[in-house]
C-alpha cells in the first residue's frame, strides 16, 4: 500500500535517492516544456503561447486522477499523503505577491532552477533575487507571526472536505475546467498566430 516509504522500511539513503530520481523527472519535463525560457513563460499572459497553462493543468489532472483512482481501489493511503495546510490570508497575500513577481521577473523557483542549469543569465539573477527576497521575508515574518499563523482553516483541508462534495465529483469538475482552459488556449494561440 502506498506511500511506499511507510511500508517498506526504507533507509533514509533510499529515500534520498528516490527523491533525486523523481527530481530528475521533474526537471526533465519542465525543461522539455520550454519552462527554462522566461519569455516563453511570460507569453502566456499575453495569450500568445499558452504552454504554461497546458503543461500545468495537464499535470494537475493527471496526478489528481491518479490519486483519486488509486484511492478508490485501495492502492494508496491518502491519510499519509502530504496536503498543504490552508492559511487563508497568508495564502491570498502570498499568492498576489507571487503573481506580481512572476510578471515582473518571468520565473518562479522551479522554472528558475531549470533556466539556471540551461545557462540563462536572467534565471541566475532571478534566483539570486529570490534568495534575497526570502532572506528579507524571514526577518519580517517574526513580526507578523500571529497574522502569518492565523486564519488557519485546516491543516489538511481539501476542497471535497470543505464543501462536502465527493472527491470524484470535484475531480470531474476540475477536469472540465482544465479541458475548457485547453480549448481556450488553442483558440487564443491560433488567433495570435502562434506557430507550433
Amino acid at each position, binding site marked *: 500500500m502506498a506511500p511506499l516509504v511507510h511500508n517498506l522500511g526504507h533507509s533514509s539513503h533510499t529515500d534520498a535517492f528516490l527523491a533525486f530520481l523523481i527530481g530528475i523527472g521533474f526537471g526533465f519535463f519542465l525543461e522539455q516544456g520550454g519552462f527554462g525560457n522566461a519569455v516563453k513563460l511570460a507569453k502566456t499572459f499575453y495569450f500568445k503561447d499558452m504552454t504554461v497553462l497546458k503543461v500545468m493543468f495537464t499535470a494537475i489532472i493527471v496526478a489528481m486522477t491518479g490519486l483519486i483512482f488509486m484511492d478508490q481501489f485501495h492502492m494508496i493511503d491518502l491519510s499519509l499523503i502530504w496536503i498543504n495546510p490552508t492559511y487563508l490570508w497568508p495564502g491570498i497575500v502570498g499568492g498576489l*505577491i507571487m503573481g506580481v513577481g*512572476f510578471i515582473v521577473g518571468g520565473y518562479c523557483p522551479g522554472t528558475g532552477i531549470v533556466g539556471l542549469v540551461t545557462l540563462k543569465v536572467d534565471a541566475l539573477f532571478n534566483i539570486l533575487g529570490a534568495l534575497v527576497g526570502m532572506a528579507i521575508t524571514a526577518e519580517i515574518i517574526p513580526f507578523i507571526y500571529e497574522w502569518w499563523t492565523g486564519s488557519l482553516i485546516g491543516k489538511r483541508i481539501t476542497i471535497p472536505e470543505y464543501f462536502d462534495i465527493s472527491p470524484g465529483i470535484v475531480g470531474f469538475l476540475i477536469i472540465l475546467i482544465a479541458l475548457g482552459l485547453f480549448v481556450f488556449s488553442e483558440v487564443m494561440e491560433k488567433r495570435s498566430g502562434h506557430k507550433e
Partner: protein
Amino acid sequence: MKLFTKSNYMNPYIAGVGLGLVLLAAFYVSGNGLGASGAMMRTVVIVEKVISQAHVDSNIYLSKYGGGDKNPWDAWLVFQVIGVLVGGIISGIFGGRMKVEINHGPKITKKRRLVFAFLGGGLFGAGARIARGCTSGIVLSGGATLALGSWVTMVCLFIPAFGLAYFFRKNWI
C-alpha cells in the same frame, strides 16, 4: 500528434502528462509532492547559519529550519531539487538549449531584463514564503491533492500576473 514542436520543445500536453506522472510517482513513493522554494529557503538558512547561528536561533521562523543542530539540507525536498538540476541539464542537452543567453523581449535591453529578473525574483521569493510554497509546491502538488488553500493561492497568483501583464508588455513582447 507530434512529440516535438517545430522549435524542438516537447508537445506541451505530453510534457504535462509526463510531469503529472512524475508528481503522482512522488506521492506514491514518498507521500510528498514536488516543490522548489523550500529548498531555496533552506539554502538561505544554511548560509545564515554559517554567518550567525545565534541569529538563526533567535528567529522564530529560521529556527524551525536550522535552529541548534538542525541541518536545513537534510530534507526530502532538497534531494528532489538536486535531481531537478540534473534533469534540467539532461533535457537541455537533448533539446540543444544549453546556451548562455539572456532571454528578453525585443524592445528592451539585456540590462533592463536582468534588473527586472532580480526584482521579480525578490518579490516572488517573498510571496512564496508568505504563502508557504511556490508554483511547484502549491499549484502542482496542492492542486493535485485538491488542497483548499492551494487552489485559493493559485487563483491569487494568476490574477495579478494576467492583470498587470499590460503594464509590463514592453518587457516581453
